[in-house]
């Protein structure tokens, strides 16, 4: 409730401040957006906003930096922003990914509008236009209302936005489509022309809106998709040059939807599950790499026996079931571990280094990960580790002592906050390793046994008694 009020206050503040500053200074005004279309997908708790902008250079100079504006609440929940330029005419379009960076604008309005700058591949000359596609992904943005529901109720959530696209540029024509998961929409704010058909609400088209114009709206609708959030995921990838990669994943899972209130009745849950516990979830699906072996699924108090593994040559699917169905606010922690063949993931680079090529991401499908930590445990004796990740992450080094380690293993720790499935991509960790180190541990064991036998032989042959 509090968060909602804060969001509204923020929006209202933005609104007034913007009105005030509409005539004031603003970022380079040479662009005009001739057409903007926004499609907002609310079917799960990960919100995808696809924004198609037709940008026209109305200024006199050529320019290559297009600025996007977001409200502070949006920025707080923003998991990723991605932009690409569309080239070519109908049906033969190709998209080119563009670089997007958060920027500060010196002459921005004093309210905390945040900006992202898209760097166009080729500067746009005066009078030219181009089409940009922008994808925003927001998490934790739907606000359950009522905040607490009983077992038999379904989950209703609020979505707050503005009917007009917040932009530092003049927008000649804009339309917004909001897609809800079902036709059950409790209420939404109209701003004519507004039209609702089936699961889609259409705002617009609105003509000729000046920069920074907004119009707050909200949609109150039913969303029973599992609000499964991994609060923390620690993934440990341990490389053994003897042919195995051992992956251990520690999950802290929570149902981030409307909190469960009152009774949990098993008899209702068992007999009428569609109407009882509609927003709860029982099963999770993890997509693991192919040729996975020795999979386990357990928690602090032991093995969890409810899991199924299906493997084929392309992928492995692990269906897991937490010990109990998760209702709003309920938590579960568990560990998934598996082994992988080394040759699928470890390669030698041209400069005589080795590198691990692994997926940066959470194997559980459709999960938001608030904090993702990946620890790559390199074999003992490896040097100069350097990670290569396609997006910015924090990283540092640690040491770990596993079985029979003397000097400890180097651990490359990569941390990413607010991770969504769209981030899934490959990353590499390069390191140098001398194969002779592989023999250290077997030799150690062998010499220990040798010493033991020598001691036994010595004990038998040496008379230790004092009496002669």
């Amino acid at each position, binding site marked *: 409730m509090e968060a909602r009020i804060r969001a509204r206050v923020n929006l209202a503040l933005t609104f007034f401040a913007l009105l005030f500053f509409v005539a004031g200074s603003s970022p380079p005004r040479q662009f005009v957006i001739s057409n903007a279309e926004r499609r907002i997908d609310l079917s799960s708790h990960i919100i995808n906003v696809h924004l198609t902008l037709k940008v026209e250079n109305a200024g006199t100079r050529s320019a290559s930096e297009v600025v996007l504006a977001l409200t502070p609440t949006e920025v707080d929940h923003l998991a990723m922003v991605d932009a690409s330029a569309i080239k070519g005419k109908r049906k033969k379009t190709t998209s080119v990914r563009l670089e997007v960076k958060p920027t500060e604008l010196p002459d921005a309005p004093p309210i905390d509008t945040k900006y992202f700058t898209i760097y166009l591949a080729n500067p746009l000359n005066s009078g030219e236009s181009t089409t940009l596609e922008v994808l925003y992904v927001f998490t934790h943005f739907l606000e359950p209302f009522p905040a607490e529901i009983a077992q038999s109720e379904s989950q209703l959530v609020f979505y707050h936005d503005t009917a007009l696209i917040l932009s530092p540029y003049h927008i000649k024509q804009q339309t917004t489509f909001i897609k809800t998961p079902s036709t059950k929409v409790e209420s939404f704010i109209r701003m004519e022309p507004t039209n609702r058909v089936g699961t889609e609400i259409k705002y617009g088209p609105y003509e000729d809106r000046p920069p920074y114009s907004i119009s707050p709206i909200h949609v109150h609708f039913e969303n029973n998709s599992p609000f499964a959030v991994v609060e923390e995921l620690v993934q440990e990838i341990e490389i053994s040059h003897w042919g195995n990669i051992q992956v251990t994943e520690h999950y802290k899972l929570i149902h981030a939807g409307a909190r469960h209130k009152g009774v949990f009745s*098993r008899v209702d849950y068992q007999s009428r599950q569609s109407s009882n516990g509609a927003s709860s979830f029982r099963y999770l699906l993890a997509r693991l790499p192919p040729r996975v072996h020795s999979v386990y699924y357990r928690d602090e108090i032991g093995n969890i026996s409810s899991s199924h593994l299906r493997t084929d040559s392309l992928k492995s699917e692990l269906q897991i079931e937490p010990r109990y169905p998760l209702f709003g606010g309920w938590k579960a922690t568990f560990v998934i571990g598996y082994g992988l063949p080394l040759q699928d993931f470890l390669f030698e680079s041209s400069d005589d280094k080795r590198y691990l090529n692994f997926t940066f991401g959470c194997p559980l499908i459709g999960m938001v990960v608030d904090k993702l930590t990946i620890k790559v445990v390199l074999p003992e004796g490896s040097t100069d580790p350097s990670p290569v990740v396609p997006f910015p992450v924090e990283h540092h080094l640690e040491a770990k002592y596993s079985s029979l380690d003397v000097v400890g293993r180097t651990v490359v720790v990569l941390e990413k906050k607010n991770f969504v499935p769209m981030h899934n991509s490959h990353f590499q960790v390069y390191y140098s390793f001398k194969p002779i180190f592989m023999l250290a541990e077997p030799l150690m064991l062998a010499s220990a046994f040798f010493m033991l036998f020598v001691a036994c032989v010595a004990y038998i042959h040496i008379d230790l008694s004092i009496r002669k």
Partner: protein
Amino acid sequence: MATMPASASDLLKSFKLKTKQQELLIRVSILCLVYILAFITRLFSVLRYESMIHEFDPYFNYRTTLYLTENGFYDFWNWFDYESWYPLGRIVGGTLYPGLMVTAVLIYRILRFLRFAVHIREVCVLTAPFFASNTTLVAYFFGKEIWDSGAGLVAAILIAVCPGYISRSVAGSYDNEGVAIFALLFTFYVFVKAVNTGSLAWSLASAFGYFYMVSAWGGYVFIINLIPLYVLVLLITGRYSMRLYVAYNCMYILGMLLAMQIRFVGFQHVQSGEHMAAMGVFFLMQVFYFLDWVKHMLSDTKLFQAFLRITVTSAVAVGGIALGLGMVSGYISPWTGRFYSLLDPTYAKDHIPIIASVSEHQPTAWSSFMFDFHILLFLFPAGLYFCFKRLSDATIFIVMYGLTSMYFAGVMVRLILVATPAVCLISAIAVSATVKNLTVLLRSKNKVVQTGSTKGSGGSKSSSKALLDQSQPFQKNGAIALLFGAFYLLSRYATHCTWVTSEAYSSPSIVLAARGAHGNRVIFDDYREAYFWLRQNTPQDAKVMSWWDYGYQITAMGNRTVIVDNNTWNNTHIATVGRAMSSYEDEAIEIIRSLDVDYVLVVFGGVTGYSSDDINKFLWMVRIGGGVFPVIKEPDYLVNGEYRVDKGAAPKMLNCLMYKLCYYRFGEMMTEYGKPPGYDRARGVEIGNKDVKLEHLEEAFTTSNWIVRIYRVKPPNNRW
């Protein structure tokens, strides 16, 4: 190439061992095999389920071990546990035997030091099998000490697989008994060794063995009473010797001083009635020694007789007066209820229902003797015969150990465990002696045929020769038949032991397994489901009320505060819970609120047919509750002395809290095809009260098979 075979045979010849070396090699390899066998036969549950802690008490031990690893010894020693016995709490450091935990942590530290990245849980799970393996070694040496190395080997084999011992030492059964039986046998062995040799070193070792035993298990009382009894018997039978004097005095004094270091035991060695026998024998020993010395000094026998009379009378009188004074002044505490119930099997039933309610405290049925000992039960008397035939200080000890422990095993099921080593040793003597006699018979006959004279010495040989002369024709065949019979019996024993271990003693009892309709294995993991739910989804400081059986598990796995647990130190507190469970809901809620309870947990087997649930334990709650609060009367819950839950049940039964919590909304549930809704599969009846309404409690969680049901205590209604 052609010369190779010759050189190889030369090499073989040079490697050829002497008979003695061969014997040593065989002995060592048998011992190694037995050592491994004892370990792996206990791993059924790990292979079948997982590496997990079993049952109830081990969970407490595991939790304390975890605490010890995380916080170190001093914190552990001073640990006051707020999470159990709310609101009283428990001084854990002062009320447990730390031997097990310290042992496990020591093993853990050593493994860590050797760079093995093991988890403490694995160490805990495998502690009991590891110590069982060590026990086989001790049994070998013990057998060797009292009889010969053959008997030692047989004893090691027998004890390695004996179900009576396996029942408490399978992997995961992380309980005091796991290490205590090792400590017990070790103490006895070293003490017998000390008596046999009169060596101070051995008696010192026995003092330390005793110290380890005291630190590990309350069963040390058996040692501190059996050894004095043994000494007394030796004194009476005129086997007093200087060796005995050294062994006992050193062991008693040092053992007592060491035992006082354990906080839970403290000064009991000088203050409690159970330990007075040892002290009495100690003083008697001094009097004996003194008299011996006087006798040595005085040549006049008449004078000595008079002196003897005076000394003995005065010594007995002084002892009696001291004991009487101690008892009256309260310095020496009287015997505890548990001790009484050992001496008088009916005592607990009449006076302490909480002891009688535990299934492992029941008197032993014949079938369980058969189940746990199998052929040892028949070999035991035979072994006693051999022991009496070759009476020595050591065999007297094992006979006394066997007889007393067999008596205790008859009193309480769980004490079969204590009797097992003795039974194995005595049976091993029987097996070894019989087999030896038979083989000697076979061999000596050959010798008769070959040389016509026997060179060997020894009673058995000459007697066999005498027999030989009488019945020459059937002698050999008879011996062969008997040998085969013995080996057949022993192989049956091995099969039986494996079967019992696999079927009866390898279930973790946290996870229940059953066969599904298609013959597949169905796992009921409801306990952990509920405990993990508690751990994750209730406030950190939530107080859970349940029957005491589940207390340790809730604190260890659920990490929540409990009202009562398996350390049944406060009978009144348990009775309060029993009273709450057996009252009507509106009376119970008063008790529940006064105990500041947030959740009530019950175990219910009506859906799955799980019979050891709270409804079947309920009469004990009534009895224990009624023992302290006379408002609870057992007949109110019975109909004509019969306990039932269907329509014919007593009205109080149908409306008490336990009934309501177990059967809440159960009346709507179809459990079995062709039966009415609300059919209780554990008891095979349709329940009597299907319309259960709860006023002050609400269902918070029920596991998928309904085995554990958790209720939330609603806050009181607002006054208007």
